[in-house]
């Protein structure tokens, strides 16, 4: 029998709506995300995907609706009810945010090792040797040669930077990862390697992931479930293969039919 808390969602969106003045960001988005589940959010640019990510990570506040998150102590809290310090602690420890542009998620002025170690220091690690040891093993896990630990991320290729960003996020053992087009802008061979890495890490570490992508192949490879957004609203949801193999809505059918076969 599964433990009681595993039956409860880690993250729930309830009627999430966000207006930018008279411009709609997203409207009435609701879903539950459970531990170990990867959910893809697909839709073209301007469909509200990034607004949704920013709402989920409490970087912006909703015009209506709420986001519930089950904290490590098992208590489910409304993000709007958290203090600034609590929110920052969550963002630094229990959440990861992988940006499309790794320079947004990395500190370009410090070494790769420091980029990874910094998140550990933020949660109270002080022993230099332990921090360096952990950073080294994480670089290795994301397939970066540990000999490059003291190099600046500026000297890294874009694929390496993206993997470094992932290591920086995972080092604190977060439970929730939000990803915004993590493979966008990478060439395909680098993409394949990154996708394979992400797939392995997500299942091994039982991560819950919200993955924003416009690439349906990425959604198929990485996610269990998919929600399709158009003009700020969720128009279709389901198991990923169901949404991609048997799309119901006109827009989803168009999306699926528009993919060029390789």
């Amino acid at each position, binding site marked *: 029998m599964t433990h009681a808390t595993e039956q409860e969602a880690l993250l729930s969106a309830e009627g999430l709506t966000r207006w930018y003045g008279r411009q709609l960001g997203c409207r009435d988005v609701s879903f539950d995300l*459970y531990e170990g*589940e990867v959910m893809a959010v697909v839709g073209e640019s301007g469909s509200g995907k990034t607004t949704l990510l920013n709402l989920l990570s409490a970087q912006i506040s909703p015009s209506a609706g709420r986001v519930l998150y089950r904290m490590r102590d098992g208590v489910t809290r409304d993000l709007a009810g958290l203090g600034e310090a609590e929110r920052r602690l969550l963002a630094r420890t229990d959440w990861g945010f992988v940006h499309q542009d790794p320079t947004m998620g990395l500190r370009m002025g410090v070494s790769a090792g420091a980029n990874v170690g910094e998140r550990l220091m933020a949660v109270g690690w002080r022993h230099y040797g332990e921090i360096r040891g952990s950073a080294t093993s994480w670089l290795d896990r994301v397939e970066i040669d540990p000999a490059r630990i003291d190099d600046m991320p500026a000297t890294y290729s874009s694929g390496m930077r993206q993997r470094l960003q992932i290591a920086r996020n995972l080092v604190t053992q977060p439970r929730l990862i939000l990803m915004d087009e993590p493979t966008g802008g990478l060439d395909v061979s680098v993409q*394949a*390697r990154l*996708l*394979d890495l992400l*797939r392995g890490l997500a*299942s*091994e570490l039982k991560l819950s992931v919200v993955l924003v992508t416009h690439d349906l192949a990425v959604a*198929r*490879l990485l996610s*269990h*479930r998919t929600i399709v957004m158009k003009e700020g609203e969720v128009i279709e*949801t*389901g*198991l990923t*293969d*169901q949404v991609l*193999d*048997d799309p*119901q*809505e*006109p827009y989803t*059918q*168009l999306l699926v*039919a528009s993919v060029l076969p390789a």
Partner: protein
Amino acid sequence: MGAVLELIGVSKTFTMHLQGGLRLPVLAGVSFAVHAGECIVLAGRSGIGKSSVLKMIFGSYRCDAGHILIEQDMERTDLVQAPARRVLSLRENTIGYVSQFLRAVPRVPAIDVVAQPLFGNGTSRDSARARAADLLHRLNIPDSLQNLPPATFSGGEQQRVNIARGFLPERPILLLDEPTASLDSENCAVVTSLIAEKKRYGTAVVAVVHDETVRERIADTIVDLTQFAAAA
């Protein structure tokens, strides 16, 4: 003993929005039951919806009406109404599916493609890989290929990797979509005996098979879908 899998009044219509909302009714009222150790072969002309039935049981196609009842641990689930999480857990523990074509993942070697369904359910990686290697050997995939990603394999080799992946985990229900379509007679015989072993083990099998010899050797019951064809 009750049925492991039962379809009651299952219907499927495709609506093609890109063709002006064209509605294609395919199947209506599909009903049959499968018991442990039994193999049902779906029959009917090409395009009648044999693969669609398998996909509805696996949950990758939606079902417009009816019930798909699955028995697991004394508990009955109607797949048509079950939430996505439940369907995922049934796929992890109860329903195996061998699709017509392998969807190759870049960079992952064949042996891991096969062993992967066992990863994470208590089996160690080494023993999962050892079992995967045994099965691949039986299907005549040599060691030299096992450590390569299957993207560059021939059609028949890919299909055998796909079969190994579907057959390795022991699941009470196994769905097979043309498992022998691109295989030579030697490998065809291997797959036929693998299916027979599954049946002896108590697996309920639903298969789409065109090859007459294979069909005769594995089928306990043939369900002709022609009787359920929807009036267009």
